[in-house]
């Protein structure tokens, strides 16, 4: 299973990559909107974790672009700030506040990919 991790924080990118690789997933990463769409097209991931605050575009914008292309693709909004009451994130399958403990993220991915 291939997961696209979109995050501009390279440490977090690496943390996600290492931790999720250990879980048996193939990880591709992107640090901004342009890269994200490129990887999205090229790698055809089975799941995307999407940061909302990105240097070039809004994560919500990416969410819509990806959903328009692949409505059934599970997307987890993974952000530093809690946007869960914002209507716009509701289009995603799941929503998570980033944490140093990745247990919740892992179980969420597992559930969405099963």
């Amino acid at each position, binding site marked *: 299973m291939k997961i696209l991790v979109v995050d501009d924080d390279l440490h977090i990118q690496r943390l996600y990559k290492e931790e999720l690789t250990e879980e048996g997933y193939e990880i591709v990463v992107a640090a901004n909107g342009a890269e994200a769409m490129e990887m999205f097209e090229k790698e055809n991931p089975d799941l995307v974790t999407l940061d909302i605050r990105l240097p070039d575009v809004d994560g919500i914008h990416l969410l*819509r672009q990806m959903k328009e292309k692949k*409505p059934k693709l599970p997307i987890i909004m993974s952000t530093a700030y*809690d946007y869960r009451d914002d*209507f716009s994130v*509701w*289009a995603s399958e799941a929503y998570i506040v980033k*944490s*140093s403990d990745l247990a919740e993220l892992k179980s969420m991915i597992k559930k969405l990919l099963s």
Partner: protein
Amino acid sequence: MVDNRQAPEVKENLEGIIENFPDAIVTFDLDGIVTSWNKGAEKMYGFTKEEAVGRFLPFVPGFLVVAEKEKIDRIKDGDILKDYETVRQKKDGTILDASLTLSPIKDAEGKTVGAICISRDISEKKRIEKELVKRNQELSRLFFISSAMRGTIELDRLLRMILTAVTMSDGLGFNRAILFLVDDDKGCLKGALGVGPASSEEAFQIWSRLSLEKKTLSDIIRDIETGPLRKESFLDKLSLSIEIPLSEETILAKTVKEKRPFNVQNVNGEPLSDVILSQQVGTQAYAVAPLVSRDKVIGVIWVDNQFNKRPILEEDMRFLSAFSNQVASVVESARLFEQIALAEQELENIFESISDKVFFTTKDYVIRKINKAVSERLGKAPEEIIGKKCYEVFHNRKEPRRRCPHHKTIAAKKPFAGELEEPYLGGTFLTSSSPIFDSTGEFIGTVNVMRDITDIKTLQQQLVMKQRMAALGEVAARVAHDIRNPLVSIGGFARRLEKSLEGDLKDYAAIISGEVAGLEKILGEILAYVRGVSLEKHMVNIDSLIDEVTDVMKSELDEKRIVLLKDLHASSEVHVDPGNIREALLNILSNAIHAIGNDGTIVVKTYLKKGYTVVEIKDTGCGISDEVLPFIFDPFFTTKGSGNTGLGLTITHKIIEKHDGRIEVESKPHVGSTFKVFLPFKSEK
């Protein structure tokens, strides 16, 4: 005859004295035949000595002869009559009051042979006495009338009493009376009312009836005091139509200007007599007296004796003037009272129509007076509010609220104003409270004005919140990004270290990851607090919320010729985030408009059903096919083509779910769709 044998010189002297004495001294025998008649008697009675001597006492009027003979009999028995008052008749027939002293004349043997009568004219004294009695009666009548009037504050009633007193026979006894009041604005005298018969026939009827009924002035005054007031007599109507300009030279105008009474004996002989007035009332002679109160003429009493033609005498005028002086101040008071009553009524109207809640209390918090706004806001009748303690009524408490401005005013006897949120009334009130002191400076209570600022407050709060949110949101997002991201890295890699290290080093890594987890928790709490203010549920009336939403859509509806019918019957308060629900309903309505295109109808209904407030939105649009219906709430699902996010109904669905509600949809292609939004009306969260 006096025996004069012993002292002829004494006799002569005595005769001389008697002859020239100013009092009338007359002697007569026991048959009453005059034997001597002095100069005083000549002067007093008009009879000369020659005319009187030898005749029966000429000054005794015919009707007193018998009585006089009885008196002579008493003299015969030796009595002396001293200073008795009777009447005597002069030669010209006029009667005069006299005081007499009768003593017997005795001969040498001591036998009574005649009498000596000394008489003194007391007409003047009598006249003064009578005058005094009359004055006394007049004064007591005046006193009675004015005391009755002082008890009457109703102007019309009072004026009628006055005129009745003027026309009653045991009052001033005039036939007719009209009262004019000065109208300063118009510069004229205006007839106020009239009392008296319309014609001689009526006069006769009234007078005979009154004499039969034997009603006294006090009876009639009492009748006026309590009975119904009518202004329908001939003279009333006539008087009301009379207006006399003060600028013209007439008797009535002069009465006002010169502040003195006039007695017009003959209207034809008086050039200043108001011809029109005289013709209107049909009088030959009349009198007028001003009503002067505090040196200002406030009116004029007009009187005449048209029916019995009795001339108006000086004493009538005197009485009329005295009466006018008495009543003027009373009329003035009644007029002022009437003005005060009018002003009071005006104030009362203003008080009632103030939209702020106004109430008065005693210093013991007891509500004395409230305006309509108070009883409307509380939904209680004034009787249920007045007399209660204000803190019971407004706060539903057993004691005053410490923060209440009114409470502070009572404690400090100074004005206070402030905002007070009152959960019992479900609102915020700007209350200003001021102490009331009586004329001696004693603190007696408070006057309070409460303005409902709940709406303003809510708007203010929303505005403040939005500003705060904007600022806080910015800060929070930065904090989140700049602190949470490094924390995630620190903690995340510490966990990784922890997994691959052993011994002390593993423990160190565990300490780092544990501390980071703690920091993340604190950060989460802080951010949650910042977020917390953004979502707030209020009690909202669902019907008014719908009105707000449909108002927003009005121009679009008009443009597309879509008729919107509202049938709102829930009027239920729902506990929701109004912004969220507004968004949800707006989405459904936009879809309905989109489904219709142009020309159609949307019906919005609200009602209550099994613990839910239901909002039903029915359109006559294109409808939704059975194949599409299961997907309408899916994100980015849209049939509307580009330019649509496909998130509208998704968001609506999530919003309603968040409020513990649900959405039901029924639809038929080419007929229309019905969306039913169910919101629990007892939801607390």
